[in-house]
């Protein structure tokens, strides 16, 4: 499987603290991957680097068939290239409707003047309805996003990511604050999404990761400690010591 995203030898420090230390990480097309690790292992910093929020001190981040470097691109350029990111806290635009939120996220020309001239195409409405149905918000299309429950906001944000049609989806702790039923739905959705694109899930919750049933990467102190199936990594003595043993 050729790599969609190739992170090699990346390091970054904040005020002398090595948040990421010579990290290498690959993910292939249409792969589902869970990233786990204790607090401060560098999970979120890793996402920040891939999405362009943080510039690494050294190393490479290459993307796609042409191995294009993501390091010289801005956050919005990276997003347009096909990297979608879901934040830990649901961030939707609360004083706008579910429809507005989804329309904004739909894949389209993002140039300010193109947006100014934007008119809904005949398919736009159908696409919004389809997306809302996929994330269970069919009955809430015209509601303000701020009126949705916490779980529904998480879903809306996932819907917005789908609307972006990314080739790689980075998901930061999707299960946080969800009820058990919502978690199960989320698991099913992530597995389904990974059939058409690459998905990286950062998660604390072991049961959640187990249900994803995919390859797991364990981060510790900014580098990869172990990689493999969940059973494989949980048997690794290093992993037991730094993470599970505590």
């Amino acid at each position, binding site marked *: 499987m050729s790599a969609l995203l190739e992170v090699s030898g990346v390091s970054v420090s904040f005020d002398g603290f090595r948040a990421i230390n010579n990290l290498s990480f690959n993910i292939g097309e249409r792969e589902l991957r869970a990233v786990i690790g204790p607090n401060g292992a560098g999970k979120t910093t890793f996402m920040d680097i891939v999405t362009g929020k943080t510039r690494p001190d050294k190393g490479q981040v290459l993307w796609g068939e042409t191995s294009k470097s993501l390091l010289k691109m801005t956050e919005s350029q990276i997003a347009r290239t096909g990297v979608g990111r879901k*934040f830990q806290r649901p961030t939707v*635009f609360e004083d706008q409707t579910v429809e507005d939120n989804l329309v*904004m996220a739909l894949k389209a020309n993002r140039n300010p003047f193109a947006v100014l001239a934007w008119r809904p195409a005949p398919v736009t*409405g159908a696409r919004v309805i389809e997306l809302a149905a996929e994330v269970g918000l069919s009955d809430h299309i015209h509601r303000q996003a701020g009126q949705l429950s916490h779980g529904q906001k998480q879903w809306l944000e996932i819907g917005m990511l789908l609307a*972006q049609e990314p080739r790689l989806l980075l998901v930061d702790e999707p299960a946080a604050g969800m009820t058990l039923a919502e978690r199960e739905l989320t698991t099913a959705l992530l597995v389904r999404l990974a059939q058409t694109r690459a998905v990286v899930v950062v998660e604390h919750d072991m049961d959640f990761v187990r249900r994803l049933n995919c390859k797991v990467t364990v981060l510790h102190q900014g580098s990869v400690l172990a990689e493999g199936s969940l059973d494989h990594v949980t048997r690794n003595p290093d992993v037991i010591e730094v993470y599970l043993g505590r």
Partner: protein
Amino acid sequence: MTRTPFILRNKSVLPVLAVLAVFTLAVTFLSHAYGNGAIPTSMVKVLGKTLCLALAAVAMDLVWGYLGILSLGQMAFFALGGYMIGQWLMYARTEDIVAASLAQNPIPPTPLELQQATANQIFGVVGSADLPTTWAFAHSLPLQLMLVVAVPGLLALVFGWLAFRSRVNGVYLSILTQAMTLALALWLFQNDSGFRGNNGLSGLQNLPGLEGVGQAKVSVWFLWASAVALGLCYVLAAWIVSGKFGSVIRAIRDDETRVRFLGYPVEGFKLVVFTLAAMITAIAGALYYPQAGIINPAEMMPIASIYLAVWVAIGGRGRLYGAIIGAVVVSLLSSWFTGGRAPDIALPGYVIKWVDWWQVALGLSFVLVTLFAPKGIAGIFDLMPRRKDKA
């Protein structure tokens, strides 16, 4: 997806245009020149100027209420617009006067002599007799009209590009905009800035070639021009904020990082809105100063821009008609209270003179509105019972 036309989607457009039309017609029919004379010419000018301030407030609302940038330098663009039109007004009129006086000479003046005499007349007051390069286009109305939008637009573009790409945000950006207008004012205060220093430009109420018409008529013309500009720019602003573009800029106001991760070039959007608002503000200024008659660098001091922000806050930011209400109500009240006609309040032992106390009252009401009525005066419209439109 079916969409209603934006005029209907944006429920405030038609009422605002209707009120504006009724107001302008009413003032016209009560004016000296075209009506029964119930409203004196000076009052027509005050009302016309108020419409220009309302237009500046609409632009401020775009930048602050919708995009979330508290710009405290908007009046720099307003005054620049005034300076650009003032250059032509002053030059063309002085040239007429100089030409008339030189016509007495036995030998008619050459164009160069005429230009030098005009420059001497304009710049004698700051001890100079040469026409500065900044006045190169002052002889031409079309060119100066172009500069009215080009100069403030370019300033906003360059300033915005530098500030936005460095990701300066929040209060730091506000301070930066304030520094911009202060620096510009201090530069213009200098005698050798080429804009007559603290004398500013004067006699702007006299339109060259139209001296015979009289201020009574001219004041009504400017009232109409201001009303048309306000109406057109209101429709433009309403169109901008109602579509997907409006959705994106409000999203930038609420969480710009998230908008970046949606793939939108945030800086580009900020630049478009900031520059457009600067141009609208400059048009407002270019209509305002011929009615005021005089412009000087004090108009650009930060306090003017802070007042603009206060008007928009009191009127209700984040909705365009709120900006108009705030600018009209507060600026008219200001001129009433500071004009010495408001009755003083005699307390035992102290007399509250409104000329002194108006500023305090304004400051207090700003604090109260911010604390207790963040939607401003326009929030009243939310309290009115309205039809539930089921979507």
